[in-house]
């Protein structure tokens, strides 16, 4: 028995470590080190000011370059990250953000349904974004069906497969 534990322990450790490393998705590099905290606390923006589709459409949308251009246009800014944004704006080029919170295409998820109609806070699924000084590289929660179902059961809302899958 002691021998089994002795040989199994390193194996289990390696498996666990692999899980942790792959789980943190270290390979994701966002194009700009976007600071949500600065934009919400210091600039005073609300989530919907930039993610303008949240309340009216199914997709929240990552803001387009025109939205960034409302405040940023200096490609020579002393702040390296601001200069990067300014550079994209001056070229009118889309910032190649990597989408982190992804719902599979066979599931119908609507932000309007959840935010406007069900009055669910953004933080419920995305975490305390206003405290984040770096952009997302991993999702706040793994968007698996059990996450959806648990909340639907607690909230006593429709749980029929056909109401979400398509």
């Amino acid at each position, binding site marked *: 028995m002691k021998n089994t534990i002795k040989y199994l322990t390193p194996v289990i450790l390696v498996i666990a470590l692999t899980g942790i490393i792959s789980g943190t998705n270290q390979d994701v590099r966002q194009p700009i080190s976007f600071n949500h905290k600065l934009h919400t606390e210091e600039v005073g923006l609300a989530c919907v000011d930039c993610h303008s589709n949240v309340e009216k459409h199914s997709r929240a949308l990552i803001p387009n370059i025109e939205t960034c251009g409302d405040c940023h246009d200096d490609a020579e800014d002393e702040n390296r990250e601001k200069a990067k944004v300014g550079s994209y704006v001056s070229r009118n080029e889309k910032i190649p953000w990597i989408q982190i919170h992804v719902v599979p*295409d066979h599931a119908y998820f609507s932000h*309007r349904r959840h935010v406007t109609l069900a009055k669910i806070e953004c933080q419920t699924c995305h975490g305390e974004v206003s405290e984040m000084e770096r952009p997302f590289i991993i999702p706040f929660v793994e968007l698996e069906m059990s996450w959806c179902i648990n909340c639907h059961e607690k909230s006593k809302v429709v749980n029929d*497969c056909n109401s979400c899958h398509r």
Partner: protein
Amino acid sequence: MARWGMVIDLNKCTGCAECVTACKVENNVAVVGKDESEMGRTMLWMDILTHYEGEYPNTKVRYLPRPCLQCDNPPCTKVCPVRATYLDPEGIVAQIFPQCIGCRYCMAACPYTVKSFNWYEPHWPQEMAAALNPDVSARPAGVVEKCTFCVHRLQKAKEQADSENRELQDNEYIPACAEDCPTQAISFGDLDSPHSEVSELIRSPRIFTLLEELGTEPKVYYLSEIE
């Protein structure tokens, strides 16, 4: 709660296959080549069945558009071992693609042969890829698919009605085939609503369903041709 149904007037149907095209585009139904078609692997959620009568030159062709008949007593759901297909509360025979294990029991059980199996990974020519409907998933290889009465349209219509704090109205939810039919041969609506077009049409003496004797109780009805 609504009970969705369809009435197809064979007297109005010209066999133009606009419903077939509309369905294929709306639901991202895969296109297979000639060789695959000859092996019986054609993917169609809406098909036009043709029936030839008489001998040349005195022939007559009859057309019968055939989507999933959305049976109230569906044989397909009873054989599914993983509940990937089931009768939903509004009478739509749901097909939950990510749940399907591809055993194809449901295909064997369906007396109307409305189901298709995905033999291949979804692939469209580059020109068509940009035209895919983002509201409907592309089914992977190895799963069974069929007409869903365009249930994604119901999901969106319900949300729109809820956001305006009102009930779903007549004709707010209508599948692509019914919407696109140039002769309005296809009517769609709530069979339980006493004033809906479909509930009035199913009282017609011309009404019939396919293979009635099987007791599958389809919710797609037909109005026979007037001779």
